[in-house]
């Protein structure tokens, strides 16, 4: 006993020293792996945008938040069709010049939007501004329905958007980027964050969500809201590094004579599409997910399922008019 006692006494400082060293090393690693959350609430593109970053470097995270806000501000201004800014969409639609030298970011966005016209057999048409303007006026008045004459007086030919050599030739275009600008911008913002070394993030811009790596080695749980808006969820998607985008008839609409008229217009009938309550698309590519959610909303569910089979790495869940859920083949992999 005595010898053990004296042994402990003799080496107590060594033991305590070792404990301190271990504690210090522990704290160092805990600090290194502790990701604090940095958030920012923005209001651009007529929607509420929430940015959440998880980082162990405060300065870097705060700079990144500012950078993301700047991206949303720039793209908000460029794609704004209702407010005049230097060579933005409003100016192009005004058509007061023979041609416009475009900001390269707007040029790329327009080019990307036009690509989807062919890929969707004309369902995704960014030259629908004339039609969407008419519907917007009725939506704001909350009364009446536009006549067929009114709607079909619009020339929505995609050939009216003539791009070449960073210029847009004035052809009487009326461009509306509402179906693509949010997804496009979230994608740019996500790329920016990764470039800055911030891989753990959630960007939620209305119906457009992009997540990066998880903050805690798990997977993000992304709820898909029930179109009934009763606060319940249709399902939960478990995934990292993915984009989840919903198009629904329940966000922007008005009711007249007991009929609901929402903002997603079928270019063929020029009326709101009524195949479903909503559709949610999952893809690694946020730009594509946004365009596809609009396209799938504008076609019958079965047709949409077939359409999606041709595109790799994309899944979707549809909520039918009666609330029935339809899933693409691989969607279940993402559900818990």
């Amino acid at each position, binding site marked *: 006993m005595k010898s053990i006692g004296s042994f402990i006494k003799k080496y107590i400082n060594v033991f305590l020293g070792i404990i301190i060293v271990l504690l210090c090393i522990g704290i160092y690693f805990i600090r290194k792996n502790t990701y604090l959350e940095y958030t920012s609430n923005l209001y651009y593109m007529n929607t509420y945008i929430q940015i959440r970053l998880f980082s162990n470097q405060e300065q870097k995270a705060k700079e990144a938040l500012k950078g993301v806000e700047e991206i949303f501000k720039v793209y908000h201004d460029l794609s704004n069709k209702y407010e005049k800014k230097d060579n933005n969409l409003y100016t192009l639609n005004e058509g007061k010049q023979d041609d416009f030298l475009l900001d390269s970011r707007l040029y790329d966005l327009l080019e990307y939007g036009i690509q989807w016209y062919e890929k969707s057999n004309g369902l995704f048409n960014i030259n629908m501004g004339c039609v969407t303007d008419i519907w917007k006026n009725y939506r704001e008045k909350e009364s009446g329905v536009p006549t067929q004459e009114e709607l079909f007086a619009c020339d929505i030919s995609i050939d009216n958007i003539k791009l070449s050599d960073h210029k847009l030739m004035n052809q009487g275009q009326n461009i509306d980027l509402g179906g693509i600008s949010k997804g496009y911008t979230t994608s740019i913002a996500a790329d920016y964050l990764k470039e800055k070394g911030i891989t753990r993030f959630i960007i939620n811009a209305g119906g457009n969500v992009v997540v990066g790596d998880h903050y805690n080695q798990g997977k*993000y*749980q992304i709820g898909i809201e029930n179109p009934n808006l009763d606060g319940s969820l249709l399902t939960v998607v478990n995934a990292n590094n993915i984009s989840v985008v919903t198009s629904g008839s329940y966000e922007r609409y008005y009711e007249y004579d007991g009929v609901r008229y929402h903002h997603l217009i079928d270019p063929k009938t020029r009326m709101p599409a009524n195949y479903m309550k909503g559709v949610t698309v999952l893809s690694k590519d946020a730009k594509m997910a946004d365009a596809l959610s609009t396209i799938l909303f504008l076609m019958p569910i079965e047709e949409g399922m077939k359409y999606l089979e041709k595109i790799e790495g994309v899944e979707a869940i549809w909520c039918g008019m009666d609330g029935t859920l339809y899933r693409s083949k691989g969607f279940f992999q993402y559900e818990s």
Partner: protein
Amino acid sequence: MEWMELFIVLRGFFNMNPSDRKVILFFLLLFFIFLLLFSLKKEPSNKEALVYFKNELVLTIDLSQNDFYKTKGTQGDILLEVKDFQIRVVEENSPKHLCSKQGFIDKSYETIVCLPNEVVIKIKEKKGSSIDTVVK
């Protein structure tokens, strides 16, 4: 860099007089106990509503107390009601009154967004839902 600092601190510690070392160890122990206690008590015990105006957290409301609250938005004041652990917007000034039409919310992933007023209301709870975000 951090490893070098650690080394310098440790060298100082071992060159120290043993009684001083004990005092330091005592305080370190006390520090770790506090750290443990604080890390356990960090989360709020109640369900709370967080009210943001633009990018600022302007109000934190305990949802266990039924009451009315006022907060400011870009279009004027907003009246909030808390009832049975839920919160809603009662009155606000906006063209369509979407956020007062939304009604009560009570889940941690639900939000009320008053877009024209640049006000957002979120719910925070200790053992809330594990949902990280919601797409609508």
